[in-house]
């Protein structure tokens, strides 16, 4: 029955595309004061090379069958050049049907996390991704409400752009748009557009809200496999599911002292280098906020030993859970107190971008210096893999992240050849070459990280390229990321935009990793997939 519903939705989307008028866009109500936009999308992922161990947790190869609706409202209450007031809202709701279609997949996810995974209800206000009042008065712009902030300049890499965290449970950046992956935060945000030299724009934020990153849920397509199957199914949940539940319960209370603050200056300055004028867009930023992942609370840490099975302590609870999993015993409920603390740290950042005539492209760079970033610690001598080590406490470290990209439109003579005009190609590959570096400063031997344990330096390179065919009705895209530690991914996608409303995208993602514990992305090794997105936009 559920399969019929799923294929029914697909059929309706295709049929809608065939019969609806081929012109049209957002519509207006209330005397053009209210603009209404929205979309309905079906997003399907089909795994192509599950590992044998993963097959034990699947009846099908489906990785995602998500139906998602979005609604964007813009109400222009006051619309004068020097004084304007708008109300903006971006709302969404989704239903993820894979657990309904695939029984073993369903059993791999804890009921507590599955409820949060299948629907848009991780937090009660998740259906509101953005909702704010936006007031312009002279050079001032004040925005109050739930918002998403984009501070990044380079593609596929986030260095200074750390204000809103991501929901990584369903897809990866580049497949879903950023504004739908980022988690909105309630905040007060202001801009002052000065007429000082350099056209300086001053920006500040007060954020009395916090939402940590949502990592892939254990048992789902993008998450790790749960514990080994037991005769007592369900459940057979693993350590990651337990930690995710602990983290949800450790979210800091709403309290003004948990507020984050951020400020940025944006400028636009002309400089001459060897007589060539360059118009530089630059930013300087500062952020004080909570780290997106927590560190262990010392009070409830417990003895860092595998013999500690006290469920009221973090180490003890983890050990007890591991034993119960092996024995097939019922699990112990989480205690009422929090095991984890989300702690503040600081980021000082800067970015620069300019068109470089000699390179015929745009060069962008950004750097972020993370100060006192909280980390958990472990005994380097303990004979256990990084993710299984007993936690000994917490510390802070400084980290430098840097990204550099070079965007260049590359003319392709073959596509421009008169004999190829039937293809309707724009004849150019819009290509971006990127470099990313991370340097963890100080001693990292005792820092307990699940991924990249004891690694001081990360170096990565990215390439993304796209072109337009059939007058941009078809857009092929390729993206690839390669880390010098021999992990990475490549994605091929073909987007089809036949008319005003229907959107289709077919893609293939392949991952590789020498050591899956080198990074969160390396964990995706064995999750190669074909995906299809199709939707209706209005």
């Amino acid at each position, binding site marked *: 029955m559920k399969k019929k519903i799923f294929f029914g939705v697909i059929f309706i989307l295709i049929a809608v595309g065939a019969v609806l008028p*081929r*012109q049209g*866009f*957002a519509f207006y109500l209330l005397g053009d004061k209210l603009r209404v*936009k929205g*979309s309905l999308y079906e997003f399907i992922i089909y795994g192509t090379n599950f590992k044998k161990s993963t097959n034990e947790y699947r009846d099908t190869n489906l990785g995602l069958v998500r139906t998602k609706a979005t609604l964007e409202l813009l109400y*222009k209450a006051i619309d004068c050049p020097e004084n304007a007031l*708008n109300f*903006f809202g971006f709302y969404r709701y989704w239903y993820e049907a894979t657990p309904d279609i695939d029984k073993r997949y369903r059993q791999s996810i804890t009921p507590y996390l599955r409820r949060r995974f299948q629907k848009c209800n991780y937090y009660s206000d998740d259906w509101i991704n953005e909702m704010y009042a936006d007031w*312009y008065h002279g050079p001032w*712009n004040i925005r109050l409400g739930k918002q*998403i902030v*984009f501070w990044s*300049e380079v593609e596929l890499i986030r260095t200074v752009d750390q204000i809103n965290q991501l929901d990584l449970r369903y897809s990866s950046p580049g497949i879903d*748009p*950023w*504004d739908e992956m980022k988690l909105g935060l309630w905040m007060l945000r202001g*801009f002052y*557009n000065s*007429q000082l030299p350099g*056209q300086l*724009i001053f920006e500040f934020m007060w954020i009395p809200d916090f939402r940590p990153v949502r990592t892939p849920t254990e048992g789902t397509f993008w998450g790790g496999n749960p514990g080994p199957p037991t005769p007592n199914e369900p459940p057979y949940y693993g350590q990651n599911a337990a930690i995710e539940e602990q983290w949800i319960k450790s979210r800091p209370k709403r309290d003004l002292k948990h507020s984050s603050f951020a400020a940025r200056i*944006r400028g*636009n300055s*002309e400089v001459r280098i060897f007589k060539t*004028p360059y118009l530089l*867009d630059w930013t300087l930023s500062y952020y004080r906020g909570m780290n997106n992942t927590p560190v262990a609370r010392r009070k409830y840490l417990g003895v860092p030993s595998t013999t500690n099975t006290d469920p009221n302590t973090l180490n003890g609870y983890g050990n007890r859970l591991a034993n119960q999993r092996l024995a097939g015993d019922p699990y112990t409920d989480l205690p009422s107190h929090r095991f984890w603390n989300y702690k503040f740290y600081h980021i000082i950042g800067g970015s620069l*971008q*300019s*068109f470089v*005539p000699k390179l*015929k*492209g*745009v060069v*962008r760079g950004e750097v972020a210096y993370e100060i006192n970033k909280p980390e958990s610690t472990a005994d380097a001598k303990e004979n256990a893999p990084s993710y299984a080590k007993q936690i000994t406490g917490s510390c802070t470290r400084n980290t430098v992240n840097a990204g550099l990209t070079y965007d*260049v*439109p590359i*003319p392709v*003579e073959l596509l*421009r*050849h*008169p004999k190829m*005009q*039937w293809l*309707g190609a*724009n*004849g*150019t590959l819009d290509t971006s070459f990127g470099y990313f570096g991370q340097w963890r400063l100080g001693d990292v031997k005792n820092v307990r990280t699940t991924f990249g344990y004891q690694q001081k330096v990360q170096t990565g390179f990215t390439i993304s390229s796209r072109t*337009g065919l059939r*007058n*941009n*009705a078809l857009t092929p895209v390729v993206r690839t990321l390669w880390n010098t530690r021999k992990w990475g991914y490549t994605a091929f996608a073909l987007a089809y*935009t*036949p*008319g*005003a*409303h229907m*959107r289709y995208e077919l893609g293939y993602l392949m991952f590789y990793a020498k050591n899956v514990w080198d990074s969160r992305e390396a964990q995706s090794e064995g999750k190669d997939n074909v995906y299809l997105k199709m939707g209706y*936009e*209005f």
Partner: protein
Amino acid sequence: MDMKVKRSFVSTGLRVLIILAFSFPVLSRAGEVTFPTFSYNEQELAKVREWEKTWAGKKVTTETIDQVKDFLSEPVYKAMKNPKTFGTDSLWFEVVPYRPYAASKGMTEQTKKYAPDSKLDANEALVNFGKVSGYPFPQPKTGIEMAWNFDGNTRGDTHHVMNEGEVVDCKTRLERHAGHLRWDTYWASRTDLPPVPAIPADQNQRGIFRSYFQRHIAPVDFVDTTMLEIRYLDLTRDEDLWVYTAMFRRIRRYATSQRSDTIDGTDMIYDDQDGWYTSPTWNTYKYIGRADLLVGRHVDNKKAERKTGQGFWNGIQRERANNWAVEVVSKDKNYIYGKQIWYLDPETWQMNFKVMYNRQGELWKTYEMFYDEYPTALGQKAAYMACEHTVDFIRSHGSPGKYTMKGLSLDIPLTLYQTGSLKVKAY
């Protein structure tokens, strides 16, 4: 003679001599300039009026097109004869009488003031570009002079318009809708809106020649995307382009080095905007003669019509005009067009249409710009596009569009053309 009278006589005589001495060159130079210029002289006009007695007010269709073949460009005739190529069974237009354009007071004054001294340097750049305005060569002799006249047509100096159009695949009849609001300002070569001829250097420290700000209103995916592009007085300098993509909430710098990219999947490339968007110095020009053709100079775009899947407008009002035809070849040997033929209006120097050939010399596209005269905020008149279409003969594809005039010669704040506006003016 009384001494006082004698002194007065001498001083008056000297004053007259001084005035004559200074005014002689002005009078002399002014004598060389004839402006406004018109499409036809009296005799030619009489013949045109005679022809119009038969044709004015008539609807010319695919079936009757051969009767006016002599007054049609090759691509328009070809399209009219083969309407199925552009998604319809029949194409038609209406013939209207020729009407001369009214040159604005500012354009007339500036042309008369600066044209007598106009000259080109060794690189065929206009000497004193940015410090002068008007049409530099009202009686041009070469193609490059015509191109600089085209560049001098500022159409009221600022423009605010809404442009909506379709990208039409005439074979499958599939269409994609696109639309934007656009604000343009000439920072130099100004003729009408004070300060003329240019915004003073202390308010234009970056040496901007022209800038535009654009806000997309369709398709849905691009709603609230804004663009800012700046063209500089330095003719060797690339334009700067910023795009605020609403979907990604980011202001990004874009490379303008690839100006032969198509614009959002239309049949136009970036260089095609307004006929030719960038500096005249990027091409070589050859004047190939006058072309008395039916073009859209006073077009009521409400009468322009088409059905879904049709890439070429019906209902255009075409009038005769004796265009200047110029063959244009890019200095870039790998340029996407092998050559273009520009058809420039003899009165406003606007481009009435152009024909683009591929590198094998085949007819590829034509871009017809259909104008109308609009009142400016300064009580003058200026011709601006009312609608347009670019059609691709090889692929049976078309990009018809219409403009809604919001204002010409408006006092658009220069602060609009700052990157800070990209987010602020996104909706």
